[in-house]
């Protein structure tokens, strides 16, 4: 992969640097026209570059999952969508000294649709990042990014997004949303950006950062739950909104 385009970053990277000499590997997936495939990828240590080409009217789902704890990991996913292609990137990330997922999705032809759904949990001193560049290069394309993270103790999360709508990409709809729940001494940084060069578009982003709602916590505790149980229940409900978006087979 030559240059991998990505999103603007915070001036100072709050995440710990990668050590040198991490193993690197590349994967290529070509999804033929009209087919529907699910590509499960277990996140491994090291650098992973993934190329996904989704041909006309094909439908690809990439499911990135952390099953075993990894130390340092970085995934660079480059998705290219042709006419009426559909693509869904699902991230289920937890743990890590530093786990970072960069997605660069090019909606090259009209009618293509891309979705990104992410669930992130960090605890201890874990660092995670998610960076999504959604490039609308053709008319009538749709983008929909939804990320939710929960960070406890001294963990950190960085969420950046860039929705870029090219001049010719009229009738485009695109959304970016990230919500973060913070506990203890955790920190989060959000940088959702938009660059819109067409005018007949609907583009928006939203971002919230905060802690679990006191009133909800109080309600659950008044029903006999301990503070820990109540908070776990609220976190589970928080992720439910992302789970609702996932394909049935992956749940």
């Amino acid at each position, binding site marked *: 992969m030559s240059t991998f385009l990505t999103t603007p970053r915070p001036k100072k990277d709050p995440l710990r640097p990668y050590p040198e000499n991490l193993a690197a590997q590349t994967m290529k997936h070509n999804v033929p026209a009209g087919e529907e495939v699910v590509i499960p990828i277990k996140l491994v240590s090291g650098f992973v570059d993934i190329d996904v080409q989704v041909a006309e009217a094909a439908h690809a789902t990439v499911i990135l999952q952390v099953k075993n704890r990894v130390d340092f990991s970085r995934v660079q996913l480059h998705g290219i969508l042709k006419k009426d292609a559909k693509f869904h990137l699902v991230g289920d990330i937890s743990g890590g000294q530093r786990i970072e997922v960069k997605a660069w999705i090019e909606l090259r032809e009209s009618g293509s649709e891309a979705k990104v759904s992410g669930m992130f949990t960090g605890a201890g001193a874990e660092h995670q990042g998610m960076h999504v560049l959604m490039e609308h290069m053709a008319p009538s394309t749709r983008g929909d990014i939804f990320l939710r993270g929960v960070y406890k103790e001294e963990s950190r999360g960085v969420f950046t997004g860039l929705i870029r709508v090219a001049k010719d990409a009229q009738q485009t709809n695109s959304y970016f949303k990230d919500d973060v729940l913070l506990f203890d*001494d955790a920190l989060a940084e959000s*940088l959702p*950006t938009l660059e819109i060069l*067409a005018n007949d578009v609907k583009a928006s982003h939203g971002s919230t950062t*905060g802690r679990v709602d006191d009133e909800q916590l109080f309600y659950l505790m008044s029903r006999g739950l301990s503070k820990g149980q109540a908070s776990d229940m609220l976190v589970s409900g928080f992720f439910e909104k992302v789970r609702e978006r996932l394909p049935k087979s992956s749940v």
Partner: protein
Amino acid sequence: MDRSAGFRACAKQKIPMPAATKQPVINDIASQQFGADPIAYSFMSKPGLSERVVKEISHYKNEPEWMRAQRLRALKIFDSKPMPTWGADLSDIDFQSIYYYLRPTDKVAKTWDDVPDSIRKTYDRLGIPQAERKYLAGVMAQYESEAVYHSLKSQLEKLGVIFLDMDTALKKHPDIVKKYFGTVIPAGDNKLAALNSAVWSGGSFVYVPSGVRVEIPLQAYFRINAERAGQFERTLIVAEEGSYVHYVEGCTAPIYTANSLHAAVVEIIVKKGARVRYTTVQNWSKNVYNLVTKRTYVYEEGTMEWVDGNFGSKVTMKYPSVYLLGKGAKGDVLSLAFAGAGQHQDAGGKAIHGAPYTSSKIVSKSVSKESGRTSYRGMVFIPHGMKGCKSTVICDALLLDEHSRSDTYPTMDIRESDTQITHEATVGKIGENQLFYLMSRGLSQAEAMSMVVSGFIEPIAKEIPLEYAVEMNRLIEMEMEGSVG
């Protein structure tokens, strides 16, 4: 309102290229256009920036040694810092072709009668109504680099409110100025703040004593009037405990042939329980680089409100900031930008929560048309330990045609879990159904579009004093002319 005629004249008139300028008399371009006398400048620095120019400025102003030293220090910082490249394109600015100091008259006029004829004529043409000049408290008109006209209502004087141009303030109240000058925005903050600190001239100084409420907005007019004249005003507002003041800044400027630079610095200190509102309606001519640093320190229970409207200039980079430094401090930034052909409005706001239980709200509305580009650039920072902070950021952008562009670059750096931070941004065009509805009621397409735009900016327009809001609406109507077709 007559004054908007001035805005209109400035923004719309095509003014011919002036003949080659001779020192020390510059042919005033606006005067040529309207047939008035050229203005004699009593002192004009050579174009370009050097230690000598800075020393000359300080010498002609007869400044105390500490200010001279501070200017020279700032010049060194300016030379050592690179141009910011993260925002708008600034590569066309040639610092060596700019005049850093122009002084149209030798002393600050005490009454309106003392203001020289040629300058008065120019203000007449700007259309500032006579009644307003007399009745509005403390109308201070800045012509070129120094205040030439400054009147202060006697009742304000009785309250102990100081409202002077910055140069006079430095002479009359050196202690207060020295205590606060450069404390909110030091010269090292950024390259353009360093430039301002080195060559600043004019601007306003406002001091409101403890417990005093200034009920009438304080207003100042700013205007660039000579080709290649940079204007580097420096404003400092100090609101003591429990006081209130509303400062209004409006800018007009005629069209020039060379790129002009406006690099102002505005420092505001809001002490315990005080409230300050700062309103700007910026309509520089469309070849001016408007690069302004504005920042407020807000202490316990204090409130700062920035209301910032940007219509003119070629490039504007301006991010009014609130540093919330005491429990219960509150900061609002309302930002409005309109970018027409060839303009880039890079505006936004910053909220730094330096104390627990502080709150901030940034609302940005932008409209772009033709090749105009608007960018929202903002920052919310909550350091660790700042419990109970709240921040809301809302940015809405309207794109009027297929050549316009809008960007949103917000950053939220949250290092404390006990906070509530929300951010929303939307970008879109005028809804077909809205246009259809209005047109079915008998409005033309142009009228309907103009009405939708006015409605879009309403939440900010209603925060602007009435006479400015009227002007602003006319400006928008004017900008919207010819946008259908």
